[in-house]
């Protein structure tokens, strides 16, 4: 039987932030956020819109606050998260095919990724407003 109360090493707080570890952690966090963002509308449809009860305060919240105000204001954050996950996934494909595993190339690739994200976000903000 294993000891339940064994001390777990305090990761993420004792290490220096490196490019590789930070980008991997962001990949996971952005994946979880994307999961919530994709699953949310399905459950929202099931629990809010197709209910038999026609008047609920959450209807007001979803129709007048969430979709017009909140989602339009954070759309660029959402798109940045999606773009980050996709481009970092392409980097993972590169690493799987043993290319750009070098430290210098990985640093250069991460710089390109951040630059790409910044440019796309600026263009999107320019179009949006």
């Amino acid at each position: 039987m294993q000891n339940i109360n064994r001390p777990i090493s305090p990761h993420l707080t004792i290490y220096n932030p490196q490019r590789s570890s930070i980008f991997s952690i962001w990949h996971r966090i952005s994946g979880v956020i994307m999961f919530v963002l994709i699953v949310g509308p399905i459950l929202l449809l099931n629990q809010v819109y197709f209910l038999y009860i026609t008047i609920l305060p959450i209807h007001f919240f979803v129709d007048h606050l969430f979709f017009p105000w909140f989602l339009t204001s954070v759309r660029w954050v959402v798109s940045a998260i999606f773009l980050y996950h996709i481009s970092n996934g392409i980097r993972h494909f590169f690493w799987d095919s043993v290319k750009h595993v070098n430290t210098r190339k990985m640093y250069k690739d991460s710089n390109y990724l951040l630059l790409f994200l910044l440019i796309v976000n600026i263009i999107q903000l320019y179009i949006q407003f």
Partner: protein
Amino acid sequence: MKFIKTLILAFMKKKSYFYWFPRFLGLLLIPGFLFDTEILVLFQSLILLHASLGLEVIIEDYLHLEIIKLQCLSLIKVLLILLVNLNILYLL
């Protein structure tokens, strides 16, 4: 090229599905993001499968108690089945 070769080899051998399956789904999902987001509504079951595989990996990494890990994995699978059913229901 080597990546495609290893992917096809693993696919042919029907082994190490944890390697090729999420990557294959991710390769399928990339053009949807590049060209048209409405394609992703049709591919939403693939998205959910990819997401549930990723969540399984995260749970396997961060939960250290064996029983709770197995419970969480089975709950994730049940949630995946529920979500794909809801998705098919609302697409029809």
